[in-house]
């Protein structure tokens, strides 16, 4: 046997190092293929991630299966998920929401769950609003995690009472909303510093949706096209343009960037703000000493019916490439139907989808005052709720998260960069291209 010289040492050492690096790169994929338990991915802010992980852990303990929980924040979630799916390495179970669920379903990345719903996943006690929300293209895909109403029109009750408005009727009209807004703006600005009645909600897709639904149409049709007309959108933008001009809605130069902390209610410059759903009340209330309440989006006119939208805000789905679909379905049943899971998750996903479960939790006395409000508003709105059509693929740039076109155009109108008819034409031509 000859002694290894320096060159040979370097050569073999280098090869070994290279092979080691390759193994390092490929290693996790190999390990993944052998089945490393059930991977579950979701997003959440604050203590939501811990709470959801606790629910997973409770199930893992009870069932004996291994769960690899992958909770992250909202911004980081989507890049990671899309990359995992593109790489054929999707989590077995992952969370989706309105703006993206159809994208994933339409491209065959989500497993249809028709054969699990009603068997492995018990839907017998679910509210109709939850049962209606599982479909895309006639197929069942989505497991609703909780119920809220959308949008949340949040008002500062303390401020309103301070100026003598003691009650808001849940069946109020758009004209009354505008009128009350003007009254508040006038009262709050009495000390000389200009304040407003309401936040500018012209860029909010969920509020626009409530508006078009109040006129009897949906945001999108079953065929995946826009459900409202150019005239509807012109009316919408004109409402907000007029409200800004009259000092009823927050002026563009008085706005601030940010989350709940930048809203008119929290900054004390307006008394009406909006959140995507009623579970957003928690975030608002944690920042305010005042008493905050909800009212539904107003009826379109005095002779219009009251239309609410009780809906899940998040759903979970089973990956089409998962090799543990049965286990995944059993986990989802636990997540949405088991009291232990609901207790662990708190209000983070909304009120439970099961009617009896909702009642049981509500009566348990374990809910905080804010959580009780969120449960109650769901219960109160359910009789008026009509299902929406799930947003189709391609709707993201129009009405999705970030700065969708609906919001960008509202800002451009507010800053006088575009006229309303031109803005509406642009929205519809982009819709033609995207949908």
């Amino acid at each position, binding site marked *: 046997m000859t002694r290894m010289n320096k060159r040979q040492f370097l050569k073999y050492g280098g090869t070994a190092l290279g092979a080691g690096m390759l193994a390092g790169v490929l290693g996790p994929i190999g390990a993944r293929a052998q089945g490393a338990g059930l991977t579950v991915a979701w997003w959440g802010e604050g203590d939501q991630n811990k709470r959801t992980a606790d629910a997973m852990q409770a199930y893992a303990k009870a069932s004996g299966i291994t769960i690899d929980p992958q909770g992250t924040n909202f911004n980081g979630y989507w890049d990671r998920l899309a990359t995992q*799916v593109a790489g054929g390495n999707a989590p077995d179970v992952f969370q989706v929401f309105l703006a993206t669920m159809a994208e994933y379903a339409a491209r065959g990345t989500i497993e249809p769950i028709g054969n699990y719903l009603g068997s492995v996943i018990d839907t017998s006690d679910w509210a109709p609003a939850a049962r209606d929300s599982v479909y895309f293209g006639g197929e069942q895909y989505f497991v609703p995690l909780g119920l809220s109403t959308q949008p949340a029109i949040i008002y500062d009750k303390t401020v309103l009472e301070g100026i003598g408005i003691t009650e808001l009727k849940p069946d109020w009209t758009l004209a009354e909303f505008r009128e009350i807004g003007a009254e508040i703006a006038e009262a709050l600005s009495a000390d000389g510093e200009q304040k407003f009645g309401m936040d500018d909600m012209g860029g909010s897709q969920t509020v626009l949706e409530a508006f078009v639904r109040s006129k009897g149409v949906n945001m999108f049709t079953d065929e995946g096209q826009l459900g409202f007309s150019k005239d509807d959108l012109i009316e919408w933008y004109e409402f907000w343009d007029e409200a800004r001009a009259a000092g009823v809605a927050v002026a563009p130069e008085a706005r601030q960037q940010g989350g709940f902390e930048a809203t008119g209610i929290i900054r004390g410059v307006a008394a009406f703000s909006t959140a995507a759903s009623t579970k957003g009340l928690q975030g608002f209330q944690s920042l305010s000493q005042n008493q905050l309440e909800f009212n539904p989006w107003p009826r379109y006119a005095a002779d219009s019916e009251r239309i609410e939208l009780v809906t899940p805000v998040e759903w979970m789905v089973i990956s089409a490439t998962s090799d543990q679909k049965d286990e995944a379905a059993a986990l989802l049943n636990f997540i949405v139907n088991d009291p232990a899971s609901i207790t662990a998750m708190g209000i983070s996903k909304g009120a439970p989808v099961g009617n009896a479960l909702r009642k049981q939790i509500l009566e348990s006395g374990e809910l905080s005052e804010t959580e009780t409000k969120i449960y109650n508003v769901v219960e109160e709105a359910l009789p008026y709720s009509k299902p929406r059509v799930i947003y189709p693929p391609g709707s993201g740039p129009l009405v999705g998260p970030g700065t969708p076109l609906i919001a960008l155009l509202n*800002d451009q109108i507010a800053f006088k960069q575009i006229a309303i008819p031109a803005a509406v034409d642009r929205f519809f031509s982009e819709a033609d291209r995207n949908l």
Partner: protein
Amino acid sequence: MSQQASVGEVVRVASPARTVRQRSANGAAYTMLVPWLVGFFGLTAIPMVASLYLSFTDYSLLAPPEWVGADNYAYMFNGDYRFWPSLTVTAFYVFVSVPLATVVALAVAVGLNRKMRGIGILRSVYYLPSLLGGSVAIAIMWRELFDKNGLVNLVLSWFGIDGPAWLALPQTAPWTLVFLHAWQFGAPMVIFLAALKQIPSDLYEAAELDGANRVQVFFTITLPLITPIVFFNVVMQMITSFQAFTPAFVISNGTGAPLDSTLFYTLYLYIEGFGNFRMGYAAALAWVLLAIIAGLTALAFATARFWVFNPDD
């Protein structure tokens, strides 16, 4: 004689034993390069070729790409309502913040180019902001500073000025990003400092004897002699500024708001790729950015001979 020897060398290299040894040496060298080659091909070359291919496809990330020819490029120049605004915002950022950062870096470098007690510490302090770099933490701090109730407006209020909500107005938001860049002058400053120390002191002594004042000395000796470094700093900063992402992402919470006034090109690319599931289009945007940067760099080199000092001339 020396020619013969070199011929001899060639003959010896060509001998079979030598060739085997040479091959073995090459083999060892290539083996040593394996980690780098894996990195180069795996992380740079193959992804670049793949992205060029993807730029000609409709690719959602969730389904296989479909060939669409030059459609992505055609749409970019003829239909995309956010392409030109994002390019304009980025160009504004580059062409305002790079000269500003360069001037600030040079001014601070000149100020710190002196012998005094504690100068090392002072230089380190001035370099600190750049150590923190384009980090998320700094961008968040910036967001707080320029908030309506932030430190900047607090200071302004001492002088009776009611500052705006800097980040909420499309007129002021891009300037906060420019200031952030200018504030991170440390890296070019250090390079300027090194360059200033290279200037022969006899030139300054001669100027002093001729009665030149400090301003004259700066503009006739210092500045001309360090133009190669100015050139280097400007080109490098221009390249990195076109690719800037983190500040705009953090300050606008990933949206480019208000009114797309902080929609940096790379942020838009990211939104299209990951937010709107248009990775093919995002790849096309990336290649156009590459072309823009390459073109401007070439332009900078073409103009260099008119203003950059070359000792060989």
